[in-house]
């Protein structure tokens, strides 16, 4: 049973197969066709809905999500708002009125998704007003493609929506809604563990013990957290997922704990929740997050999923390699801890044994180390890397120490450039040392030609990013912090 609220109305949907998407549930089972399917791969945002969850202080916090790649069962215990749920009779919601007045729709097909992304931004502004900077707008709307307008009127609508009287949707009149949703979310979790629910094939254990147990019982079941990659197998490859284990509710996988040497981040922690940590302690990582997928994806996806997925072009693994992260694995044969360097074995092959899962990821403190993360892709936002470089080092009396140079997109797995590291280790950041490091790259990588870039481009670019690093270090040593002449602010920090 998927038990949730939709635009203020309770919905109870029984006998929904575990691989049903939220979009399918809305459009096919519930006949709510306002939400559109543009790509069924989480890339265009036409299917964007707002998902409201208890905010811990008696209200509901809304985030935008791609319904096309969201498991329908994850709607349980949520308040879902769709484009049909915003107007109050004939009175448009401020984001709708602003979009009409700014001529923000042309063909209108992407519009429902844009409305919902604007709605979550508007909700955010209502609770915590802050200037709508370009960065914030890009972050909020980067996952919504529009082919007609060129976005200018949409930007205007975002900037003007705050000028309109804050009409509330009808469902906002119900003071009990947040409490009812909270009650439901607790019930939903409890019910999903009960035996009848297991019969539908979708299981959502609540703690580590239950997760271990279900892993023992269903070793072949697919694990899902955000589902932002797994669900592509359903929508693009038409795979049937008969048994799905949802780890989002597992308490032990949801923590962010600081230790004397770093942080343990639970495998089910979303990127959205990691943002404050990154911003404060790993600014280069935080900067990457602006270009990591889209708001809709960051709200659902997890670092654990990005690592376990083991894609050679995943954005976080090179960063974790450069940081020297460690992984806590858990499974039927107990717990173990491995360095991330030992995790990626071959293309999409990892050190995980049958039934094993990632419990947490350890991020060491940067301390006196420095970190740079540079991503190259065709489009700045919501694109997959052609090459991603993550460099970490510390300067000890003008000499580079503990140099770790990790690349994505250069091999079948995210990998460190060990020869290039050796060329820099113990050296001053001289032209000669970097020249040697750049030359070494050609020996240790034979990247592919593919849709995102040619092998030659990847080799040249990977080497040039080392040159960028040298130029930056040169600036640093000359106490000149103006980097506007050696890289673009929008890409490199």
């Amino acid at each position, binding site marked *: 049973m998927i038990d949730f609220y939709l635009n203020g109305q309770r919905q109870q949907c029984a006998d929904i197969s575990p691989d049903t998407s939220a979009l399918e549930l809305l459009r096919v089972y519930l006949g709510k066709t306002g939400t559109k399917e543009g790509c*069924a791969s989480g890339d265009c945002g036409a299917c964007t809905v707002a998902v409201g969850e208890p905010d811990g202080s008696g209200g509901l916090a809304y985030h935008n999500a791609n319904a096309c790649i969201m498991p329908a069962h994850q709607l349980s215990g949520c308040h879902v708002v769709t484009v049909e749920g915003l107007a109050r009779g004939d009175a448009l919601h401020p984001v709708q009125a602003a979009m009409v007045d*700014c001529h923000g*729709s042309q063909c209108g*097909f992407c519009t*429902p998704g844009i409305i919902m992304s604007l709605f979550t931004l508007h909700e955010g502004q209502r609770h915590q007003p802050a200037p709508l900077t370009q960065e914030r707008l890009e972050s909020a709307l980067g996952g919504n493609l529009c082919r007609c307008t060129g976005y200018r009127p949409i930007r205007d609508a975002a900037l003007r929506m705050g000028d309109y009287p804050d009409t509330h949707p009808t469902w906002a009149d119900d003071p009990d809604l947040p409490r009812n949703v909270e009650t439901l979310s607790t019930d939903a979790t409890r019910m999903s563990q009960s035996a009848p629910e297991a019969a539908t094939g979708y299981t959502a254990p609540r703690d580590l013990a239950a997760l271990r147990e279900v892993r023992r019982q269903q070793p072949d079941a697919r694990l899902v957290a955000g589902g932002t990659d797994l669900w592509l197998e359903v929508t693009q490859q038409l795979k049937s997922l008969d048994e799905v284990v949802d780890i989002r509710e597992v308490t032990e996988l949801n923590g962010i704990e600081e230790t004397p040497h770093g942080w343990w981040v639970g495998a089910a922690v979303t990127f959205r929740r990691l943002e404050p940590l990154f911003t404060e302690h790993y600014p280069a990582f935080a900067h990457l997050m602006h270009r990591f997928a889209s708001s809709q994806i960051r709200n659902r996806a997890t670092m654990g999923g990005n690592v376990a997925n083991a894609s050679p072009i995943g954005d976080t693994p090179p960063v974790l390699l450069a940081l020297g992260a460690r992984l806590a694995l858990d499974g039927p044969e107990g717990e173990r801890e491995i360095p991330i360097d030992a995790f990626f074995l071959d293309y999409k092959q990892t050190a995980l044994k049958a039934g094993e899962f990632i419990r947490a990821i350890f991020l060491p403190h940067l301390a006196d180390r420095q970190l740079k993360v540079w991503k190259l892709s065709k489009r700045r936002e919501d694109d997959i890397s052609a090459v991603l470089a993550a460099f970490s080092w510390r300067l000890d009396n003008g000499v580079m120490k503990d140099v770790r140079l990790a690349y994505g997109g250069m091999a079948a797995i995210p990998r460190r450039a060990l020869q290039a590291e050796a060329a820099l280790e113990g050296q001053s950041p001289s032209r000669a040392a970097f020249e040697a490091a750049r030359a070494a790259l050609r020996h240790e990588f034979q990247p592919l030609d593919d849709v995102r870039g040619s092998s030659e481009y990847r080799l040249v670019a990977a080497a*040039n990013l080392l040159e960028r690093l040298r130029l930056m270090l040169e600036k640093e040593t000359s106490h000149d912090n103006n980097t506007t002449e050696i890289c673009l602010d929008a890409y490199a920090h």
Partner: protein
Amino acid sequence: MRTLTELSRDSAHARQEQIGQNKGDGPLARDTESGTSQGSAGHSAAHESAIKHVTGRAAYIDDLPAPADALHVAIGFSPVAHGRLTRLDLDKVRHAPGVIDVITIVDVPGHTDIGPVFPGDPIFVDDEISYLGQSVFAVAATSYKAARLAVRLAVVEIDEQPIQLDPIAAAEAGDVVRPTHVQQSGDWQQALDSAPHVLEREQFVGGQEHFYLEGQACLVTPTEDEGVTVFTSNQHPSETQKLVAEVINVPFHAVTVETRRMGGGFGGKETQASSWACIAALFARRTGRAIRLRLPRAEDTRATGKRHPFHNRYRLGFDNQGVLIGGDITIIGDCGYSPDLSEAIVDRAMFHADNAYSLGDARVTGHRARTNTASNTAFRGFGGPQGMMIIEAAMDDIARHIGEDPLTVRKRNLYRAGRDVTHYGQSVDQHSLILEIIERLEASSDYWKRRKAIIEFNARSPIVKKGLALTPVKFGISFTAKHLNQAGALLHVYTDGSVMINHGGTEMGQGLHTKVCQVVARELGLDLAQVRITATRTDKVPNTSPTAASSGADLNGMAARDAASQIRERLFDFAAEHYAIDREGMMMENGDLVAFNRRIPWGELVQAAYLSRISLSAKGFYSTPLIHYDRNTGKGRPFYYFAHGAAAAEVEVDTLSGEYRLTRVDILHDVGDSLNPAIDMGQVEGGFIQGMGWLTTEELKWNAQGRLLSDGPATYKIPAFGDLPPEFNVELLQGHPNSQASIYRSKAVGEPPFMLGISVWSALCDALASLVDYRQAPRLDTPATPERVLMAAEALRQSPAFAPSVETSDDLA
């Protein structure tokens, strides 16, 4: 520093005010002042579906309700690009769960070739397979997933043949889908021989996927007669009606095609929406059930044609001032496997190989190469953008060669008195307007001041280089197939005074229906709210042309005006007699018929006319005058008029990584007297960004087996929100009505702004040229992805002309 909020809030308000001031109405679209009819032509009325868009009530094909027993279709596509089908065993498909019917070419009772203009597009593969993604068979099942899963059970055996993916090799081998065409003016060879300077270049201009957000989709229901009703996301309902009728072998009147709106078209649903409707219609007749068909994104992208990639070459002679004397331009359009619309598309590329410049004595040759890809098709600009790219490259090259700024060379080459006839013989009557647009933009964008600042910046900046370019657009308006330049409209006035207008054009977001309603409201002096438009249907207005070639408002607006003015004149006649008032000086204004000292309210007038048995319905018609083109001589006046514009773009490029940002864009665009400034502004801005995407991030890549690798938004990158330039100043040119008698002297706006995006490409070239002190232009094929920009920078650094700025480390040289 001010935040973007402050910056853009100002610009947003300023823009709204500008839109308002254009026609003297208020700051918001819906706040038109009294005194003129609200929202009639010339006003920034909101899109007629705007409120439906933002509330989710606007229905697209897959949102339409269908009977519970409706079937879903999936297509079996060819897995290889070229070969002969030797075995097709569909037994397992037929027996798959949920499957009701399976069809191949042998199940087609009527025509099997659905080529829109020329034959060559089989509805299903018969014997020869021509591209990867061609339809081989189709399945109808009880659910979308069941149909898609069943398709995978087919046993297909193919005798694979060598594939051709290289249009140059195809053209050289004479493997073309249509004959080569040549346009020529004067003695081009003599011009080359006598010119003091001659340059030549080759360029590759990439194609473009339409990426309409709503994919190809239709819903077909059988009628109680022998026909079907087709609901389709479609730019050309009449052609789909014809093809469906021919395929299921019934008269055209047995087929009705309806299109309420498209979730984007851009040319991709002009010819390429029909085959899906034909397949669904076959199933509807065979099963007697409603049929839903929509293509999943990846299948849509692989199966349907795109903007043609082009290989262009020029060899041009010019004088010491950089003014063209003449020469030779050859363009090769990569047409894919069949003609589709490629005859006219390559023609239009040839018609625009001059853009805004007089070529002198020139020959332009256009080849239509056949390759083993989907049949490339219409896409906003229809070959024009690809043709313009070669002459814009030439302008940059000439400027570098003679050491002048590219803008200077562009201005010197503009059409002007004495040099005002194109290479195909049409004279350019508004040539002074192009210069005026450029000069105004030159001033408003501060071109020369910024040029100086950029040169200074680049001289000291080792890696990051800035670039600036100002490029014009001159785009010919009319279908080059003369017979398509006609339109019909049907107008009904009901007895409560409400008005219904229908016409042959389709709504794909461009605001056509809004503009047509505004035309009717203006003709009848009514509030826009009293005029409604419903779905485009072939049983309301027959034998229509595609909504394409930017012609929608020009043609259908005129037809609607014709219908409305017939009604108005009829009511004037009636009123003169019925109320015994003088017909002279009668007007329709603010919902009244006004005659000297009398005002007769519209509702009362309509009632009286009805009771007096006056017809309150009219059909309108329009055909564009003056146009002609003789393909035998390559001469004529193919265009009723030209639309113009210019854009100035500034970029900054990281020459170490190839990354770049568009930092500022200024646009001045000519729409004549605008029918709706807000909608036109939307076309200008949206067209510019789409053109920029074509030339920058949107890259189509096929593997050696002919499989399109960039088959969805994960790999094919259209511009996103952050690609919008932070400073984007767009203005519509004021005070220059169309020189031709178009609808209220407006100009077509759908396609022309697309080519303003060329300024971004030229600005990237400008930034790169700074690496060699502006002494040579880079070879920067398109799309100019970060990869291409980086590789172009690397190539320039290897050039003898490489001029490192002071701080550049020499190990990059």
